[in-house]
C-alpha cells in the first residue's frame, strides 16, 4: 500500500514538473508557431521540407529518364532538359541531401547527447528559414522556366554572361548561396553544442559515436562551404558588374571556378556520407546486441577521412591539363581515402559478426547500403586512376558512380534511420507488409537504374546529352535504366505510404522498442519541447546503461535542472573534454526575429537577382540591424553569481564565465571566414600563375599611404578593443575606448574604399584589378562588421548587459577586431605586392 502511495506521489510530481517545463519551453499555437526556435520543431520542419524538395527533384529525375528512355526523344526540348537535369542535381544536393542530413543532426543530436536544446536556438530557426526561402526561390524559378541550366556544378565559361545571359545562373548563384548560409549557421551551432552542451559526465571518450560523426561533419562544413560561397560571390559579381575573375580574355581563368567549386564539392560527398555512417554506427550495434567494435579506430578513421576528403578535389579535374606529377598526388589521395572508409565498414561487419544480429526493417536497409556503397567505392577507386578517368570522364559511368556513392549511401541509411527512429515520434512500428516490399522495390529499382549507367558510360554515352541517335548501342540499357527509375519511384511511394500508415495503424510499441542504449530513448514519446525533464549525469559509456531506469528517474526530476525557474529555458554547459558541468546556459524564448531576419535576407537576395541594388542594400542593412537588435535580447541584464542546478551543485550562468558558447561560436565563424579569405588568396595566386594576359596588363600602382593608413587604423581599433575590455573588467565605463575603435574603423573603411576607387587596372578591365578590389573589399566589409559589433557593445552597455563579471561582448569584439587586423595586414600586403608579382611574371621563359 505504501509503495502504491509512493508511486502515485512520484507520478504526480513528474506530471507537475512536465507541466511546468512545457509551459516554459513550449511554442504557442496558431501563428505563434512561426516564432518556434526549439530544435525538435525546427528539426522536424527541416526533415519535412527536405523531403518536399526530394519529391520535386525526384520528379525531375523521372522526367530526364522519360526523355532518355528511347532514342530521338522529343518529350522535352533541349533548353527544358537543361533546366530539368540542372535542377535535379542542384535540388538533390543543395536542397535535399545536405539539409536532410543536417535536419537529422538538428533533431537527434541534442537528444542523443542528453541536453535540452542547441546553444543558439534563434540561429537554428534563422538557418531553417534561409533554407526554406532559398529553396523556394529556386523552385519558383523552375516553374517560371528561368531555372539554372548550366549543370549542377555551374562551370564557367558556360555559366558566365556570354553564354548564359539570362537570370538562370544568377538564380543558382544567389539561391544556393542563400541556402549555404543555413548550412553554415547550423554547422556552427552543432559544433558548439556538441563540445559544450553534452550531458554532464559525458566525456569525449564516453560520447556516443553518433556525436563524433556529427561533430566532424559539422567541422567539415565550416571549412568546405566557404570556397563555394566565395566562388559564387565572385561569379555573381562578374555577371552583375563585370569584374572578370573567370574571363580569360580579361586576365581571369575559367578553371578557378572548378577549383573553388570542387574544394567544396568533394568534401561534400563525405559531409553527406558521414552522418549516414553515424546512423549505421548507431543502429548496427543495437541490432547486433553488442557495443560497436573499434570505437577508437573509428574516431581516428573519421578524422582521417575528413582531412583526406579535402585534399583530393582535383580528381574531378583530371582532364583539364594538369601535369602528371600533380595529378598523381590527387590520384593516390583518392585511392587511400578508401582506407578509413574501409575501417568503418569492417568495424560494422565485425560488430555484426561478434554479436547476435536480429533482423528487422532497418537492417534490410543497412544491408542494402553495404551492397550499394561497396559497389560505389570500387568504381570510386577506378575513377581515381587517371588513365581510367580519362576514358570515363564526362560519361554516364561517372553519373552511375556518383549515384552509387552519394544517392545510395544516403538513401539506404536514411530509410534505415526513419524506420529506426520513427517509433520515437509515433510510438508505433512499421507495417511490415508494406515496408519489406518497399525495400525490395527501392533496392532493385536503384540498381536497375544506375548499374546500367555504368554500361552506357563504358559504351561512350556522354552525360548531359538530351537525346541520342539510336545506333550507338545504348538503347536497351537506357530503357532498362528508365524502367528501373520508375520501379524505384514506386518503392519510395510505398515507403511514404508505409510511414503514413504507421502513424495511424502501426503496432503500438514499448518506449524503447529496439532495446537501444542511447539517451534519446530515455525521454517521453513523442519528445516534449524540453526533451529531458531533468538532465542525466553519466558515469559510463552511453551504450551500456539501462535506458528504462534512467527514463523514470529523469522524468521524476532526479537529474540536473529538474525544476522550472524564473521562466528560463535552462540547459547546462560542460567542460569540452571531461563533460563536467561548468555553467548554466539560459536559452532564448520563441521569437519572430529569425523569421524577420531571414525575410530581410531573402529581400536582399531577390534585390540582387532582379538587379534592384538599392533594395538589396537596404535589405542587407536591415538584416545587419536585425542581428544587432537580436543581440540586445541575449543574455542576462544583471549578475547572479552561482545558482543551484540540482544534485547539490551550483554554477554561474553562461553570461558570467569566460568559456561561454558564444566564444566558441565566434571561433568557428572565424575559421569559416578564414577559409574564405584563404580561398581568396589562393584565387589571387592561382590567377597570377595560371591566367593569361597578366604580363600585358597595366602595372598596378596601389597607394601605400592609404594601405598603411588602413592597417594603422585597424591596429588602433584592435588596441582600443583591448582598452575597452580592460576598463569594463575594472568596473569602469568603456564608452571612450569603444568610441575610439569606432572612429578608427570608419577611417579604415574610408582608406580601403579610397583604394578600391583608385585600383589600376580598372577592376572591370582586368582580373588583376578585380582581385585587388576583392581583397580590399574584404577588408572594408570586415571593418564594417566590426562597426556593428561596437554599436552592439554601446547599446548593451547602456542596457546593463555589461559588468565586470559580464564582459563576453567586449571579448567577442576584441577577437573580431584582431582577426580583421590580421587579415587586413595580409590583404593590404598582397595588394602592395601585386606590382612585384606582375614584374616577376615577365622573367618566365
Amino acid at each position, binding site marked *: 500500500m505504501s509503495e502504491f502511495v509512493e508511486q502515485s506521489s512520484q507520478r504526480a510530481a513528474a506530471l507537475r514538473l512536465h507541466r511546468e517545463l512545457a509551459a516554459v519551453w513550449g511554442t504557442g499555437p496558431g501563428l505563434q508557431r512561426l516564432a518556434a526556435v526549439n530544435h525538435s520543431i525546427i528539426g522536424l520542419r527541416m526533415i519535412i521540407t527536405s523531403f518536399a524538395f526530394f519529391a520535386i527533384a525526384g520528379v525531375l529525375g523521372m522526367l530526364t529518364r522519360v526523355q532518355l528512355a528511347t532514342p530521338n526523344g522529343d518529350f522535352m526540348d533541349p533548353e527544358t532538359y537543361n533546366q530539368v537535369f540542372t535542377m535535379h542535381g542542384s535540388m538533390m544536393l543543395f536542397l535535399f541531401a545536405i539539409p536532410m542530413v543536417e535536419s537529422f543532426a538538428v533533431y537527434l543530436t541534442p537528444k542523443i547527447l542528453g541536453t535540452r536544446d542547441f546553444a543558439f536556438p534563434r540561429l537554428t530557426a534563422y538557418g531553417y528559414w534561409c533554407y526554406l526561402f532559398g529553396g523556394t526561390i529556386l523552385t519558383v524559378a523552375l516553374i517560371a522556366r528561368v531555372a539554372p541550366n548550366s549543370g549542377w556544378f555551374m562551370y564557367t565559361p558556360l555559366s558566365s554572361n556570354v553564354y548564359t545571359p539570362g537570370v538562370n545562373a544568377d538564380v543558382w548563384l544567389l539561391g544556393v548561396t542563400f541556402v549555404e548560409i543555413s548550412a553554415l549557421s547550423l554547422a556552427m551551432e552543432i559544433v558548439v553544442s556538441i563540445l559544450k552542451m553534452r550531458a554532464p559526465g559525458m566525456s569525449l571518450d564516453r560520447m556516443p559515436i553518433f556525436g563524433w560523426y556529427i561533430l566532424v561533419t559539422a567541422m567539415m562544413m565550416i571549412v568546405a562551404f566557404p570556397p563555394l560561397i566565395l566562388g559564387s560571390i565572385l561569379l555573381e559579381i562578374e555577371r552583375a558588374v563585370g569584374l572578370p575573375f573567370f574571363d580569360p580574355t580579361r586576365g581571369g581563368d575559367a578553371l578557378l571556378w572548378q577549383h573553388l567549386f570542387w574544394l567544396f564539392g568533394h568534401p561534400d560527398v563525405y559531409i553527406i556520407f558521414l552522418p549516414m555512417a553515424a546512423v549505421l554506427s548507431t543502429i548496427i550495434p543495437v541490432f547486433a546486441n553488442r557495443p560497436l567494435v573499434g570505437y577508437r579506430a573509428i574516431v581516428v578513421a573519421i578524422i582521417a577521412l575528413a582531412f583526406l576528403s579535402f585534399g583530393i578535389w582535383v580528381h574531378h579535374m583530371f582532364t583539364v591539363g594538369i601535369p602528371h606529377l600533380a595529378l*598523381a598526388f590527387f590520384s593516390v*589521395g583518392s585511392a587511400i581515402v578508401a582506407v578509413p572508409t574501409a575501417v568503418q565498414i569492417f568495424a560494422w561487419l565485425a560488430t555484426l559478426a561478434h554479436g547476435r544480429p536480429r533482423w528487422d526493417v532497418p537492417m534490410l536497409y543497412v544491408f542494402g547500403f553495404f551492397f550499394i556503397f561497396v559497389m560505389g567505392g570500387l568504381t570510386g577507386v577506378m575513377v581515381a586512376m587517371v588513365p581510367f578517368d580519362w576514358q570515363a570522364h564526362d560519361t554516364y559511368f561517372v553519373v552511375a558512380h556518383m549515384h552509387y556513392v552519394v544517392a545510395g549511401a544516403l538513401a539506404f541509411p536514411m530509410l534505415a534511420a526513419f524506420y529506426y527512429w520513427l517509433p520515437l515520434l509515433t510510438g508505433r512500428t512499421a507495417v511490415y507488409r508494406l515496408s519489406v516490399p518497399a525495400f525490395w522495390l527501392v533496392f532493385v529499382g536503384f540498381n536497375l537504374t544506375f548499374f546500367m549507367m555504368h554500361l552506357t558510360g563504358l559504351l561512350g554515352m556522354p552525360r548531359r546529352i538530351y537525346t541520342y541517335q539510336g545506333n550507338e548501342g545504348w538503347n536497351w540499357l537506357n530503357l532498362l535504366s528508365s524502367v528501373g527509375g520508375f520501379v524505384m519511384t514506386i518503392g519510395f511511394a510505398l515507403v511514404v505510404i508505409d510511414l503514413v500508415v504507421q502513424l495511424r495503424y502501426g503496432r503500438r510499441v514499448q518506449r524503447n522498442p529496439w532495446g537501444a542504449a542511447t539517451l534519446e530513448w530515455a525521454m517521453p514519446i513523442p519528445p516534449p519541447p524540453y526533451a529531458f525533464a531533468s538532465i542525466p549525469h553519466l558515469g559510463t559509456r552511453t551504450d551500456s546503461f539501462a535506458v528504462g531506469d534512467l527514463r523514470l528517474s529523469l522524468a521524476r526530476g532526479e537529474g540536473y535542472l529538474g525544476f522550472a525557474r524564473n521562466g528560463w529555458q535552462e540547459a547546462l554547459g560542460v567542460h569540452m573534454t571531461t563533460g563536467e558541468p561548468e555553467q548554466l546556459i539560459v536559452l532564448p524564448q520563441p521569437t519572430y526575429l529569425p523569421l524577420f531576419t531571414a525575410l530581410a535576407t531573402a529581400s536582399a537576395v531577390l534585390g540582387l537577382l532582379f538587379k534592384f541594388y538599392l533594395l538589396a542594400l537596404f535589405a542587407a542593412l536591415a538584416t545587419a540591424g536585425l542581428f544587432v537588435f537580436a543581440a540586445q535580447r541575449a543574455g542576462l541584464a544583471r549578475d547572479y553569481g552561482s545558482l543551484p542546478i540540482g544534485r547539490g551543485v551550483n554554477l554561474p550562468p553562461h553570461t558570467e564565465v569566460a568559456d561561454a558558447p558564444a566564444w566558441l561560436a565566434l571561433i568557428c565563424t572565424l575559421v569559416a571566414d578564414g577559409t574564405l579569405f584563404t580561398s581568396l588568396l589562393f584565387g589571387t595566386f592561382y590567377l597570377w600563375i595560371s591566367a593569361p594576359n597578366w604580363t600585358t596588363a597595366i602595372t598596378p600602382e596601389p597607394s601605400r599611404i592609404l594601405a598603411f593608413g588602413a592597417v594603422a587604423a585597424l591596429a588602433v581599433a584592435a588596441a582600443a578593443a583591448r582598452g575597452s575590455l580592460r576598463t569594463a573588467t575594472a568596473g569602469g565605463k568603456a564608452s571612450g575606448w569603444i568610441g575610439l575603435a569606432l572612429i578608427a574603423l570608419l577611417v579604415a573603411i574610408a582608406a580601403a574604399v579610397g583604394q578600391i576607387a583608385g585600383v589600376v587596372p580598372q577592376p572591370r578591365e582586368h582580373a588583376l584589378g578585380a582581385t585587388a578590389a576583392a581583397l580590399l573589399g574584404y577588408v572594408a566589409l570586415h571593418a564594417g562588421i566590426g562597426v556593428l559589433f561596437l554599436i552592439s557593445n554601446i547599446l548593451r552597455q547602456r542596457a546593463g548587459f555589461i559588468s565586470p563579471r559580464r564582459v563576453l561582448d567586449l571579448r567577442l569584439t576584441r577577437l573580431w577586431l584582431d582577426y580583421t587586423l590580421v587579415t587586413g595586414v595580409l590583404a593590404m600586403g598582397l595588394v602592395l605586392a601585386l606590382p612585384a608579382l606582375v614584374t616577376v611574371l615577365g622573367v618566365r621563359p
Partner: protein
Amino acid sequence: MSERPVPPRHLWWLAAGFTVWCSALVTLYAIHGIGCAFGWSAGSLRLWLAVALLAHLVALGWMWYGIFRVAPDSGFGPTGAFLYWAVTGTLITALVATAVTFGPPLLLATCI
C-alpha cells in the same frame, strides 16, 4: 586520486597530423605549379619537391616521437588516455598518408 580535466586546447592535437598532411599537399602543389610556370629544370624542381616532402615527414615524425616518448598522463584519467590513443593514431596515419601520397609521384615526369 582525483583526475585533472584534459585542457580543451589538447583537442587541437587531433587535427595536427592531418594538418601537416594538408600543408604538404598545398606546399608541393604550389612548388610544382610555380616550378613548371617558371621553367625550372626537372632536376631542381624534383629536388625542391623532395625537400618539401622530407620537411613534412620530419615534422610528422618529430610530432609522433614527441607523443611516443611521454606515456599518457594518468592524471587525466580515461579521457586523457583516449585522446592520447586517438592523437597517436592520427599522427601515424598522417605520416603514412604523407609518405604514400606524395613520395611515389615524385618519380614521374615533372611538367608534362
